[in-house]
Each structure stands twice: as C-alpha cells, then as structure tokens.
C-alpha cells in the first residue's frame, strides 16, 4: 500500500527532515507516527499526499511513484487519500454539508450519491443535525469531526491524520479516536501522527517513532515510549 525507499528530504533552509527513511505499510493497518516536535513527523506525513516532495528516494502509494508523478496528476492522487489536519482546514464560507460534499463534487459524483454519502458520514461522526451550520459556529471537536467526515466521504483506502487531536480536549480526543477505530475496522488504512501518549498507550497499534529524520523504532502494538 505505502512504501518508502531511502527517502531523503532537505528543505531550502538547510534543515534535513528525512534522512533515509525506509518503511512499508500494508492495507488495513493502523499506524501511529510519534516523535518529538521538529523530528520530521509532519514531513513524513506530508510526503505521502505530495504536499512535500522528497529530495531523493521513492515513495509508492498503491503502486504510484510519487517522485515521478506529474503536478497535474496530484489531484487524482489526493482523491485516493483522505487527509485530516490538525487545524481542520474547513472552507469557512461553506456549511458543514457543503464542506463534506466538496470532496465528492471534485470527483463529479451525481447529486443523489452526494446527498446519500454526505448524510451517511455525518451520521457516522454524529453531526447530522448540524449539517446547515458553518464551521465558525462549531466547537473544535465538531470541526475536527467534519474534517474526518470529509476525508472518508469518498471511501478512500487510506486516511492520513496529522495530529488530529492536537487542538482538542481529552474527552473530545477519545470521541475522535472512536471514529478512527470504526473507520479502520471497515478496512481503511490509517496513519496518524500524534503527541498523545495516553491514546497511543491505551489503543494499541503499530508505532513508528521518527527522530532526527530517521525511523528509530517500529513495533506492533508498541508504546509511546519516550519523554517529551
């Protein structure tokens, strides 16, 4: 599903965020990516949906080599991947329904399919009754649930979340995790960068630790395991 081979990334300001990363993630896995701030977690994640390009090395998503992917094909890659952001990235002028529907409109779905699918995922994240509200009228947790609904509405095989609970209180974080668990139970691969020790240690999954641009630990059902 995802394969990184000797991936190296150096930013124009000289910072090396990935210093030879090799990793393989299979379909249906749930992976935590942990590590101190500035260790290359975000870069590691951003390279998967081509927000950042590696300086050298190859990244394969479902057999597509991102290093040779043309810019004009990037939107088609992103449609196969649901992305959940720490800052939600909802469109402020669209209401909840429209924000989620947007991901289906870009793939030119029929209005009927859009209506059904959007209501389905809003039901899943528990926001069906707030479909007509605008992002600014929602709490952080609710906005994050909208963001998750948008990421899964076109049933991608892979969902990537960059610190999805980073801005949320503990109770809301657990709600969000329940949603991810449910999505994962349906066979969707989930990759989640997080700083939340409690979650990682309680809901056990594969843990990848990124430090200094390298994967320093990779174990199934692992622990958070370092102080930050």
């Amino acid at each position, binding site marked *: 599903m995802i394969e990184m081979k000797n991936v190296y990334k150096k930013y124009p300001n000289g910072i090396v965020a990935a210093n030879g990363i090799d990793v393989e993630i299979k379909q249906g896995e749930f992976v935590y990516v942990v590590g101190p701030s500035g260790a290359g977690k975000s870069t590691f994640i951003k390279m998967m949906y081509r927000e950042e390009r590696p300086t050298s090395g190859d990244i394969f998503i479902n057999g597509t080599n991102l290093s040779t992917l043309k810019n004009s094909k990037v939107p088609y890659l992103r449609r196969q991947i649901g992305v959940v952001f720490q800052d939600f990235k909802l469109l402020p002028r669209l209401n909840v329904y429209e924000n989620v529907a947007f991901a289906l409109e870009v793939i*030119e779905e029929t209005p009927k399919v859009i209506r059904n699918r959007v209501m389905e995922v809003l039901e899943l994240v528990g926001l069906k009754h707030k479909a007509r509200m605008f992002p600014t009228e929602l709490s952080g947790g609710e906005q994050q649930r909208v963001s998750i609904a*948008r990421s899964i509405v076109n049933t991608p095989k892979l969902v990537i979340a960059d610190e999805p609970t980073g801005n949320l209180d503990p109770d809301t974080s657990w709600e969000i995790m329940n949603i991810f668990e449910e999505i994962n139970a349906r066979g969707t691969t989930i990759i989640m960068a997080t700083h939340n020790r409690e979650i990682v240690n309680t809901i056990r999954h594969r843990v990848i630790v990124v430090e200094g641009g390298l994967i320093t630990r990779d174990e199934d059902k692992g622990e958070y395991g370092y102080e930050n």
Partner: protein
Amino acid sequence: MKTRTANRHFRDSLKSISRNGWMTFASVSAVTVTLLLVGVFVMIMMNLNKIADDLERDVEIKVIVELTADEASITALEEEIKNTPGVAEVQYSPKEDELNKLVMDFGEDLRLFEQQNPLHNVFYAKAANPQETEQVAKKIDRLDNTFEVKYGEGKIERLFSFLNTSRNVGLVLILALLFTAMFLISNTIRITIVARRRDIEIMKLVGATNWFIRIPFILEGMWLGILGAIIPITLVTTLYYNIHKVVAPKLAQGNLFELLDFSPFIYQVNALILLMGVLIGVWGSFMSVRKFLRV
C-alpha cells in the same frame, strides 16, 4: 466536464457573490466607478469624432471653369473631374445659379447682372477622403478649361491638423483610461481573492483540479463585471438621452454638424461597457487565482 459540474460551478459562483457580501460590494463599486468614467468618456470622444467627420465632409473643391469653354468642353471637363482619382462627387452649377446665390446673399440689386452675367460656370467637387482634398484639387487644376481651383487653402490644413491632433489625444486618453480601469479593477478583485487564498489551498488538498477551482472564481469575476456595469449603463443611457434631446434640435438648425443618433450609438456604448466589465472581471480573477494555485 460534466453538466452537473458546470451547474455546480454556476451555483457556487453565485453563492460566493452573496456570501462574500462586502468584498463583492467593494469590487462592484470599483468596477462601477471606472466603467462610468470610461462610458462617459467614450460617449464624449465618439461625438467629438463625429463632429470632426462632419466638419471634414463640408470641405469642398470649387472648380471655376474658363469663360471661353463651350458646352461640349464643359461636359468633357465634368467627365474628367469625375474620373480624377480620389473624387467622390461632382456637382455642376452654371453661372446663372451662381448669380442666384449671390442675389440671395447680397440682395436684388445684383439682378442687374442678369443682362450680362460676369460669373463663371462652376463645379463643386468633394474628395473621397477629405484629408486628400489638396492633392485632388491640384490634379483637377491641371485639367484643361479650368480657370481656377479653390479649396480653402491654408484654412483646411489647419482644420485637419487640429482635428487629427484631437483625435489622437482622445485615443491616447481612452487607452490610458482603459488601462487604469483594468489595473484598478483587477487589483480590487485580487484583494478579494487573496482573502481566500487559504480556501484555494484547502480545495487543492482535498483533490480539486486547478480548473475545478478556477472556474467558479472566473464566473464570479464575470458576475462582478456584469453587476458593476448596471449603474454605468443606466446613467450613460439616461444622460445621453437627455443631452441628445436638448442639443440635437439646436445643432440641426446650423446643419454644419450633428450629434450621433441615440440609437444604435448608445447600444454600442452599452455593449462596450458590459463587455469591458466582463472581460476585466474574468481577466482579474484569472490572474489572481493563478498565483495561488501552485500549492
């Protein structure tokens, strides 16, 4: 692109117009002010141009025929003038008619001359291109049986150079105004789009293609242009209607020059205003979005 996507873009652009209330208002105001300026200015320039054309058309060449010329040679001369390159029309005025004109202008006393008319037979010719009157007159002067050829030498040169200068100045002013309008409007639109650069970034991250993002913005620019054209079109039309109503009858008496007719002129100006609004709106949006699509 599928029809439903086109419909979606259409609805999306309208939604944007209403949800971005103040930004829409700012852009539309900028478009309104500039288009109004352009409209009034074009209206004035086109009429000045018309007046210049009318003045030019009044320039004629007076060909005074030799007293010795007989009827046959006068007919021949008429043919020759007609065949001179650059001549548009020729009118023959025999010396009796010439005398009548003088009688009309200076009084019955001149009727005395009817016994023995000292005047010459005359041809009045007009050049196809009034600016070439001088050359045409000189060619006619070379023909046989012409006593003298007059064309307001000296005066028309000054008239023409004045008219040409004012035309060029008008053209430069219109171009400068158009350029300013383009700059002003596209800048205002740019500001409204810069405010939404984050939106564009998000859309790209969700998997929208560049055209999917661009089209609603371009349509929105088109609406801004159309909305901004409404007031200028109404004002320019009313203004010209009233000016025409008051001024045209007065000018008609002098019959030296006239204003452009209300129709189709005002429709052309309106079409120009609308077209400019739309073009500038679309262009402004296109250029502004372009910058933010490289995510």
